């Protein structure tokens, strides 16, 4: 099997290769509006410590849907999977909100009992 290593290439060839790969991935990433929206929603959720702490499983599921969307080739399927990913992020957000609300209610009743 033919294998090509970056260090086999001349510096300029490898730079050109990396540049074109970056260009290609950028083109793929910006191609679909639904996918872009899902990616943005996921990144925002991932940076939210409350969601990461309270809804890690739902966030992971959203990530899996997003990765599938990124790998799908058929545009309709990309739209579909991006929709599922975006919904997944919203589910994670809602679950985190529920956990926080439950913890708050429990905390206030606990402090009321001890005081």
């Amino acid at each position, binding site marked *: 099997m033919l294998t090509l290593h970056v260090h086999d290439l001349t510096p300029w060839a490898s730079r050109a290769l990396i540049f074109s790969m970056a260009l290609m991935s950028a083109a793929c990433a910006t191609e679909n509006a639904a996918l872009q929206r899902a990616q943005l929603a996921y990144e925002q959720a991932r940076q939210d410590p409350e969601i990461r702490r309270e809804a890690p499983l739902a966030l992971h599921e959203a990530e899996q849907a997003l990765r599938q969307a990124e790998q799908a080739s058929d545009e309709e399927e990309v739209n579909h999977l991006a929709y599922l990913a975006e*919904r997944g992020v919203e589910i994670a957000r809602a*679950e985190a909100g*529920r956990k926080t609300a439950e913890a*708050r*209610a429990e905390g206030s009743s606990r402090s009321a009992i001890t005081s």
Partner: protein
Amino acid sequence: MTDKVRPYKREFGIDYRVPLIWSAAVALAGCAGATPPVDAVSTAEVAVNRAIDARAAQHAPLELRLAQEKLEHAKSSLNEEDYEAARRQAEQARADARLAEAKARSQSASQHGEEVEQTIETLERESDRNTPKPTTTTVPVIN
């Protein structure tokens, strides 16, 4: 046949290529969308019912309605043997229903939390009151 002729036939007496062939066939069928997505539709239906049980009609009516509409579409696509559309609609219906349920549960929890806080506040006000005025709240007084 002897083991020399069929070296893939192991001592267990099972041709291990059979599950491989089966899984390949299932995978191909899945890719082609040739199998009716009955599981996806029933999973979506379960999710919608869970959302209704979580009082999504009250707390997340938009998401619940979307889920119900897509579930209906999925069912009619299934009847029309448009399996690809049925699968997508069912999967989206499930996602919408799960969101409706999560939102409903979240709002119920917040409401419950507010009620708990209000009750505690009332109780604290009652117990802090030194004058023996008759209480006006319906909350049972502890102590």
